[in-house]
């Protein structure tokens, strides 16, 4: 498909490939390629290497360490990273809190937070979701009450991904309960070591604990850890969510999953039904990739933080295809995949690759159609914002 790219773009992609496949340790990439989850150290190591080369936060403003790249270049950077099996930089740092601080934070916040955010010295968690506010994010109940030079925060966040690795959390909290629900929300930066913070892991169906509940019990947050203006947090959150117009399509994830299936499928590729399912998935993935390129092609006409309603389509179809790819791998590994090998269960002979991760990944990836705005919410957006229904 790279014939749609210009020769400069193809060269850029080659440069990225060269960078990722030579500078990132082969051990980390090989493990990722085999379906293992990267460790905290793996992720930090990779982000630091990228950061040393100016490649950790290319989409930040140039004055904050970003690159003056086109949307397609940013896409190729992410794509080549995925195809080289490099664990991506911490999304909460580089795609979420970083751009918000860069666009709305004070010079003091810039100085203090942007460099360690880019270099992964600080690991951020996202504190948006709450138990009683799922798709209805703005109905959140966590409160922040000003008390002298601090806010006192009380409440509970949930689905906080990788909070067990995190040093800080950026939170939406209600600072004015008297106005319409979107109006009274502020955007706060909170040190997770503060007294009154409790993190409780949530075990998921795949056996892992990648998400957590985070409780705030009279947590005092210095008032200068407010980003931007008080009560404007909803605007910043929308900016943050509107920024990633094509990432949720997960083209790199799908392509590397399909590539892995093809590498491992062996005789299964001769089964016409299996192959037809795989081929159809490839066709729809290619269509989605082309849709991503169409969105990127017009992205330069949009200011940062303005969502493109077509992103809803990319998220919706992308997550469906990501999920379908996980299902095909189960068929490749067959009965060898039924045992929980994560618990140290071995076999008498070396297990085929994928046997340990096929089912857990399939289970885990059911999340994709739920998180980041459930696919039902995306259909609402499409029917209203695009079709005018």
């Amino acid at each position, binding site marked *: 498909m790279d014939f*749609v790219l210009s020769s400069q773009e193809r060269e850029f992609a080659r440069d990225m490939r060269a960078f990722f496949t030579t500078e990132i340790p082969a051990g980390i990439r090989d493990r990722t390629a085999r379906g293992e989850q990267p460790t905290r150290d793996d992720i930090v190591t990779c982000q630091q290497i990228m950061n040393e080369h100016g490649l950790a936060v290319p989409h930040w403003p140039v004055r904050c360490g970003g690159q003056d790249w086109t949307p397609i270049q940013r896409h190729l950077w992410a794509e080549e990273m995925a195809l080289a099996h490099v664990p991506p930089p911490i999304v909460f740092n580089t795609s979420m809190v970083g751009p918000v601080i860069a666009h709305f934070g004070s010079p003091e916040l810039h100085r203090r937070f942007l460099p360690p955010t880019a270099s992964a010295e600080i690991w951020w968690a996202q504190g948006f979701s709450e138990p009683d506010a799922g798709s209805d994010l703005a109905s959140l109940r966590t409160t922040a009450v000003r008390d002298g030079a601090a806010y006192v925060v009380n409440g509970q966040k949930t689905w906080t991904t990788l909070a067990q690795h995190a040093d800080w959390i950026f939170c939406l909290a209600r600072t004015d309960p008297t106005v319409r629900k979107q109006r009274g929300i502020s955007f706060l930066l909170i040190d997770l070591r503060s007294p009154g913070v409790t993190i409780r892991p949530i075990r998921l169906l795949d056996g892992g604990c990648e998400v957590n509940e985070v409780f705030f019990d009279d947590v005092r947050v210095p008032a200068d850890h407010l980003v931007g203006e008080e009560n404007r947090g909803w605007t910043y959150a929308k900016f943050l969510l509107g920024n990633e117009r094509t990432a949720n399509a997960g083209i790199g994830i799908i392509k590397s999953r399909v590539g892995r299936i*093809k590498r491992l499928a062996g005789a299964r590729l001769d089964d016409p039904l299996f192959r037809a399912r795989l081929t159809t998935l490839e066709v729809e993935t290619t269509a989605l990739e082309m849709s991503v390129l169409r969105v990127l092609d017009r992205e330069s006409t949009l200011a940062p933080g303005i969502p493109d309603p*077509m992103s809803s389509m990319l998220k919706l179809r992308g997550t469906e295809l990501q999920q379908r790819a996980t299902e095909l791998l189960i068929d490749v590994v067959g009965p060898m995949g039924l045992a929980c090998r994560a618990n140290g269960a071995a076999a008498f002979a070396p297990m085929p690759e994928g046997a340990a991760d096929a089912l857990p990944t399939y289970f885990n990836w059911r999340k994709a159609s739920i998180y980041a705005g459930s696919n039902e919410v995306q259909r609402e957006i499409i029917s209203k914002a695009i079709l005018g229904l």
Partner: protein
Amino acid sequence: MELGLTDEQKLLATTVDTLLRKRYDPETRHALLGSPGGWSREMWQRYAELGLLGLGVDERYGGAGTGLTEIAVVMETFGRHLVLEPFLPTVVRAGQLVAAAGSAAQKELLLPRITRGELLMAWAHTERATRPVARAVPAADGWRLSGEKIAVTGGDSAEVLVVTAHRPDGKPGLFLVDAAATRQQPYRMHDGHRGADIRLDDTVATALGTGTDVTEVIETVLDATMVALCAEAVGAMDRMLELTVGYLKSRAQFGHPIGTFQVLRHRAADMYLSLEQARSMALLARLAADGPSDARRRAAVRAAKIQVDLSARHIGHEAVQLHGGIGMTDEYPVCHYFKRTTVIARLAGDLDALVTGLGEQGGLIPAG
């Protein structure tokens, strides 16, 4: 990366769309459907005047000298208006065969007349699986062809046919045949387009060009056909969604516009997804077809046809369903779009065959 249209190409789309909005409303089209020829000679002349019939034809033969993109732009607009004139058989199929394989004299003879709207052609290629293949034998003054061709779009009105037939050396050949020298069974197809079955009995023919191996030319023009059909289908699906959304907004049931029912809104959203996926692949196919004829191009074009077929089934079914009974009526336009995309999905190979073929070729995404 150049995905957008140039200003000239955008102008072309607008010009054609403006003409069709004025002159090709559903009632006009409806009347054409029942007319003897099934399409409008007057419109054909207008297309000629606009230069549409010379798209893809070299300037030295009176054409515009442009590529497949312009053809796709026109086909998409034709799809939105369900144009019945035989643009695909004459300009895209037969015209491109002549342009690619014809001798200088043949091009000189045929292409300017196509461009000026004076000559209709068609490509007689498809055969019944159960009948003997069409064969060509050399004769003193050229060739003689025998065999039967089916589903020849535009075959009812074409004056000159390009016919695919097996040569004695076992290779496929392309031949020019005077349509009047053949026997024809003309018919209307289910989408309103006209076509014919064509029988050749020792019929006088001339070889198209002088090349001995036209496999590559056939492949290229089949790819161009698929690119054109994909573009047309996208135009038709786009309009089907537009009609459906419009209907959802205007039709009331149980005291509310039915477009307020969440189930119908979400199904319209899924139609939009299907449409955009098809649009993306039609674009990819067009970009690929502008490139060299290799496995990558063939894979991209076939993949586009697969996606368009999948999308067309989904959108066609849902467009009719969401309209309810009115969607079933001949009087209301939506079913005509559904019928056209249904036929398109069965032209140039059905879905099972395309998926199997693409899979056997290794698919689109490399193992890694």
